[in-house]
């Protein structure tokens, strides 16, 4: 089993991300996994809000 390279956090972009790169014995990439270690749940907490308020809630999904 080869080396694993972990890039955590991914920087210079908006948002949270993490990459695991698994190398094989020759040092080539065997598998690379990208993960987003964050969840806020807009899909759920927009339910029940007044329709006219949703615009100012969903603008906070991404503020960039």
């Amino acid at each position: 089993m080869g080396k694993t390279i972990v890039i955590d956090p991914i920087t210079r972009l908006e948002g949270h991300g993490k990459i695991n790169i698994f190398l094989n014995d020759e040092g080539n990439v065997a598998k690379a996994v990208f993960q987003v270690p964050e969840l806020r749940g807009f899909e759920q907490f927009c339910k029940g809000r007044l329709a006219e308020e949703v615009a100012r809630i969903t603008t906070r999904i991404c503020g960039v």
Partner: protein
Amino acid sequence: MAKPKVAFYWCASCGGCEEAIVDLAENILPVVEAVDIVLWPVALDFKRKDIEAMKDGEIAVSFINGAIRSEEQEEMVKLLRRKSQIVIAFGSCAYLGGIPGLANLFTRQEILDTVYFDAPSVVNPNKILPQLATDMGEGEVTLPELHECVKTLDQVIAVEYYIPGCAPPPDLISEALTAILEGKLPAVGSVLAPQKTLCDTCPRKDSKPEKISVSEVKRMAFTQIPDDKCFLSEGVICLGPATISGCGTRCINANMPCRGCFGPSKAVKDQGAKFLSAFASLIDSEDEEEIKKITDSVIDPAGLFYMFSLPSSLKAKFFEREV
């Protein structure tokens, strides 16, 4: 003399607070000149191990934005707390919970079910949910645990100062940075914004009668408010009386009532309760049944009165009762 070290970090947030710092435009240049930025994931490639390698208290100031929603965020802010002399809760989410704090109206399970199974755009036939650890064959990948409820920064670590706003406006950020660089910070625990109420600075305040009386609560979607009339006196919920000023009445100028992103004055523990008590005194009736009719006409009071401050409220986890 070595430049003071400064860190910027984000938790459950949208990136708007980072954008607010970038919006300082050329005003950021003297700051960048005067300090050494040691962490800022959105802009610079420093990692957690760089912070771990620092001495305790080595960072002069950490600006932390976003609410605390996961184990990783909690660990990271505890690490920054150890390494920093001053921690500033930056923006509504770190200060009060903010929009991500609306998640406290639901259980973690309800959120996961909707996001991964039930939302109309989701296709997930194998019912896959994020796992804390997953064996990929070549090795394991891990994810941080999602907390049962969202917390404010000061519910997790000690915080010296608060900069309110969703997002904080450039002038308040500039003033705070100047105060830090000149060593002129106010008493620990202060909110770095004017403590007057939003109503006091509102361009519509002159249209507010001496005594507002509300006989019917109206929705913005079905009401036309002339652009010089106080929302509250027209029967539309506006959190101005329970919110501090400093935002430049941004929403009011866009003909929308305030939802309280600057939070209450520091003396007030619970912004929604503060608004509710102010609102109750405006109801134009002595008749119990009629009062009930008026209060019942508020649709989604939790969402309206606590849009930005739910985790900071006395009853931080609203899913524990019926809403």
